[in-house]
């Protein structure tokens, strides 16, 4: 009478309920459940477009038409196009120069704001602005600053007597590339600055004191104390920065739209024009994928270097 079929059933049900609860309480299961949204997001918005992009690049795919497989024909066609090589050259120069300037400028900025002074926090916040403000907004501001007719830079240079002529910031092919590099540097410098600042703050000032007492000069203190500590941070920041500079779109598109005569066309802007203005998705994808080898190599190289450290 005490142990009937109903109570046995109840007991086993209670047992199952307990084990279900304990399943979810297990760390490994719970962590996967928590990761799931993030992973799904990455799969849907990063992995899928990437794979689809490769798929399209192997097709002759025009807008609103079914594609036909053509293998590597799109890539071959690009390799034979002089404009593609111009774009490649532009992108490499843009990335290398801007990254170098951001690295040195960012480090300088970090060293400066690492010091103690009144209004230190306000200064750090203000200096971060170029990076935070949407690119479209700041690029339009720079358009007026570089404007052929009304450039304040030209006005200032002329009125301080440094030059007599107007510089054609966006009309001259070389200056146009310089201009987009300047804007990119301006925008990305705070990113380096703030990140390197975090790295600098881990260095105890006692280290510098001790080194100074031992007779180390400023440069020696820099190379042997500062640099080793921030090198890992520097490498990671540089890796991210290079990836996003290499694939930069908004800035060159708004400032010059690839002009004059393709002098500032980068991979992303060129791919966009081919894909969206000419409706040639296959070719556009091929141009966009051309970024992959260089970036891939860079990431591998930097990661190996970092692991070695």
């Amino acid at each position: 009478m005490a142990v009937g079929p109903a109570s046995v059933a109840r007991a086993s049900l209670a047992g199952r309920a307990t084990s279900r609860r304990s399943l979810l309480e297990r760390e490994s299961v719970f962590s996967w459940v928590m990761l799931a949204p993030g992973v799904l997001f990455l799969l849907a918005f990063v992995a899928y477009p990437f794979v689809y992009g490769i798929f399209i690049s192997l097709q002759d795919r025009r807008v609103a038409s079914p594609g036909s497989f053509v293998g590597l024909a799109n890539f071959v066609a690009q390799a034979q196009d002089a404009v593609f090589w111009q774009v490649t050259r532009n992108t490499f120069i843009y990335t290398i120069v801007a990254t170098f300037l951001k690295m040195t400028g960012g480090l300088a900025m970090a060293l400066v704001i690492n010091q103690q002074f009144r209004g230190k926090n306000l200064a750090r916040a203000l200096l971060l602005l170029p990076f935070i403000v949407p690119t479209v907004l700041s690029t339009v501001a720079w358009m007026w600053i570089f404007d052929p007719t009304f450039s304040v830079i030209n006005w200032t240079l002329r009125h301080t007597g440094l030059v007599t002529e107007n510089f054609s910031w966006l009309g001259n092919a070389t200056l146009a590339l310089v201009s987009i590099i300047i804007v990119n540097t301006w925008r990305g410098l705070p990113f380096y600055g703030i990140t390197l600042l975090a790295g600098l703050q881990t260095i105890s000032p006692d280290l510098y004191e001790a080194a100074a007492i031992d007779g180390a000069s400023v440069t020696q203190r820099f190379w042997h104390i500062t640099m080793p500590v921030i090198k890992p941070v520097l490498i990671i920041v540089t890796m991210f920065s290079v990836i996003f500079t290499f694939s930069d779109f908004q800035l060159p598109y708004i400032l010059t739209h690839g002009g004059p005569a393709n002098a500032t066309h980068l991979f992303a802007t060129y791919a966009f024009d081919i894909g969206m203005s000419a409706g040639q998705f296959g070719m556009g994808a091929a141009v966009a994928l051309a970024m992959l080898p260089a970036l891939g190599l860079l990431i591998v190289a930097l990661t190996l270097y970092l692991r070695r450290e």
Partner: protein
Amino acid sequence: MVGGKGLGARTLRLYLPLGFFLVAMLFPFYWMAITSIKPNRELYSQKIMPLVVHQPTLTHYIELFDGTNFLTWTYNTMLRPSSPPSSRSCSA
């Protein structure tokens, strides 16, 4: 702290570079701000000194709210709050 404590050394190490960075980073925002309150006659003149506003005006702001769908666009932008983190760091 290490290094010269005098005003000269401090200027060289702190005030000068700090000033340079502040001006370099913030000038475009200053430029945007004064452009928004400059009247057309100053904006389109090549002879006038462009670094300051001589006769500020609110006409551009009035045109923005009156002549365009700015409020709708602002509303739209606010309704899409969190862009994915990956796109945020796209400006590095």
